[in-house]
């Protein structure tokens, strides 16, 4: 029973990792770069939700979509202003750029007087409620996290598999030039993908907010989402969620059964083992390049 309890909390935590990893995968799938700003976008999304509720006085059910849409627009703007000018440069430039964007976002939030340095609570209507199944205790936050992650993942998977937009995104990821020749508006797609990733980050931030509170450094959890993305395979949407679940449960179990200290590094040990054994992840495709 205790094991089951641990598994449930691990799964809930893993869903958060998975959601952030989903952002990585979206950007990776469409533009073949990795965004280190994803965790910080999540933080800004959570602050956005907080601002909508406290400053603007929106009700909860309005501030959630407001924050998500707001972050989506922010993501599109970010791509237009910062990422697009260096499109076509080595992928590592974009990685450094997103590190810079992460620094700026974190610094900018910290610089807001009296708000940036504090820890806030996001008043969600389901806070504190628990569901009891026999001896098993599941909090409402965990159920919401798991449910939303499932729905979101299914939606995105369907989009990439069946919609023209998703197919176009995949095509432009594999070969920008060829996609461009086929009439795919590569630049506009990249903008959309960044918007989508920022929106997903906002959802992750809003889901995480009731569990860990809202503060400027909550974006560092994004560093644990990298292992999730790698374990699942960087280019696979279901892989991101599965990877997140693996990392979350490994973390929860090692926190309980292994000596102190292993909880924090267990995800990284898993990812190292994974990289040595199966570098493309559980769901990654293996293709060879022809010269």
């Amino acid at each position, binding site marked *: 029973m205790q094991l089951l309890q641990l598994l449930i909390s691990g799964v809930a935590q893993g869903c958060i990792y998975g959601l952030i990893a989903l952002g990585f995968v979206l950007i*990776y799938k469409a533009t073949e770069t990795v965004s280190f700003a994803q965790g910080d976008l999540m933080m800004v999304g959570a602050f956005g939700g907080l601002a909508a509720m406290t400053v603007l006085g929106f009700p909860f059910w309005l501030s959630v979509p407001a924050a998500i849409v707001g972050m989506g627009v922010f993501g599109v703007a970010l791509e237009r202003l910062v990422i697009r000018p260096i499109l076509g440069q080595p992928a590592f430039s974009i990685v450094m750029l997103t590190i810079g964007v992460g620094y700026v976002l974190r610094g900018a939030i910290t610089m807001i007087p009296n708000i940036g340095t504090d820890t806030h609570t996001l008043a969600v209507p389901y806070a504190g409620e628990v569901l009891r199944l026999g001896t098993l205790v599941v909090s409402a936050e965990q159920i919401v996290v798991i449910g939303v992650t499932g729905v979101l993942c299914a939606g995105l998977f369907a989009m990439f598999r069946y919609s023209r937009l998703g197919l176009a995104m995949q095509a432009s990821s594999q070969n920008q030039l060829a996609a461009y020749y086929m009439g795919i508006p590569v630049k506009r797609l990249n903008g959309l993908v960044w918007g989508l990733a920022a929106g997903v980050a906002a959802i992750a931030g809003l889901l995480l907010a009731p569990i860990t509170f809202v503060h400027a450094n909550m974006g560092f959890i994004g560093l644990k989402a990298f292992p999730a993305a790698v374990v699942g395979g960087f280019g696979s949407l279901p892989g991101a969620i599965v990877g997140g679940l693996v990392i979350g449960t490994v973390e929860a179990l090692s926190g309980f059964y292994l000596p102190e200290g292993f909880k924090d590094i267990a995800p990284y040990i898993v990812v190292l083992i994974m*990289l040595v054994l199966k570098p493309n992840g559980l769901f990654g495709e293996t293709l060879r390049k022809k010269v």
Partner: protein
Amino acid sequence: MRFIFKTDYNQDIQLAKHGGHVFWYSLLGLFLLAAPWVIEEYWLAQLTFVLIYAVVGLGLMLLAGFTGLFSLGHAAFLGVGAYTQAVMVNAGLPFPLALACAGLLSAAVGMVVGLPALRVKGIYLGMATLAFGFIVEEALARWESVTGGNSGLSVNPPALFGWELESTNEFYFLCLVVAVGATLAIVNLMRSSTGRAFVAIRDSEISAQSMGIHLARYKTLSFALSAALAGIGGALYAHKIQFLSPEQFSIIQSIDLLLMVVIGGLGSIHGAFLGAIFLIVMPQLIALGKDHLPDAIGQAAGLQGTVYGLVLIAFVLFEPMGLYGRWLKVRAYFQLFPFYRRGLFKRQKTFQKSDRLK
């Protein structure tokens, strides 16, 4: 304009290409030798930090700038070197022996980390080194019997053949010797066949392989050398800072190191030094600028991070070759005056192809 008439094949690989090099580097050398008597003690300490970071930067430059393998966990090698040095010096071993051990142990660790590099590339390698960095940081914090854990470890001053180097001046000269040695080593490495192999791997693995370069051996070698330099830098860092704690070697430090080589200019030895100067001088400039800003901005906690981020974004967008690239442009402008054209250093745009297909 300067025209170099080549009359000998060896001229292509000479250290000093022409008289100007000899003159300016001699001047720089004289300044560095005279520095303790010329500049204030505070700035001498900062200069020592620049030299230490430059040694680490040279290591990372070898890996990221010349071999094209990006490490997001270089602070781990720094940490391994620093702790090795601290433990050995505190046990009473002489400085040179401890320094050699710090370098060798870091190199050994680097080879282990290099192993996944043989199978993965690009962002996956970044992930592997990132994961490794976290593991080392945690190990430093948990292995309390050796490292003192989170409460930290104080470091004795270095002793050289019974001579204790305690003052700022003496330690400065020690760092200068190590930094000059490391620079010469890297410069010479880069004009040897090994260095050329590294650059070939960076430019195209497939073509390097077809030219008969053993990828696994050279990548491991690059990791080992890079880690060794980071370890030596870490050893000096341990003496300079005199107190070690695991959070000094966190992901933030790794990113700072990467920022250093990118801002300095990837793929140039000057870049390591320019980046180190940037990394040390920037916080001072921010501290100076604070007083001239309104309190709401100047005293805010996030100012430094924001400025770092903006500078990094500006460099990637407008000057991807870093400070050294900017210097090359300025130099070309004056050398070619008045014939400099804007398109001279124009970057070649490429359409991105999938990494997954490699």
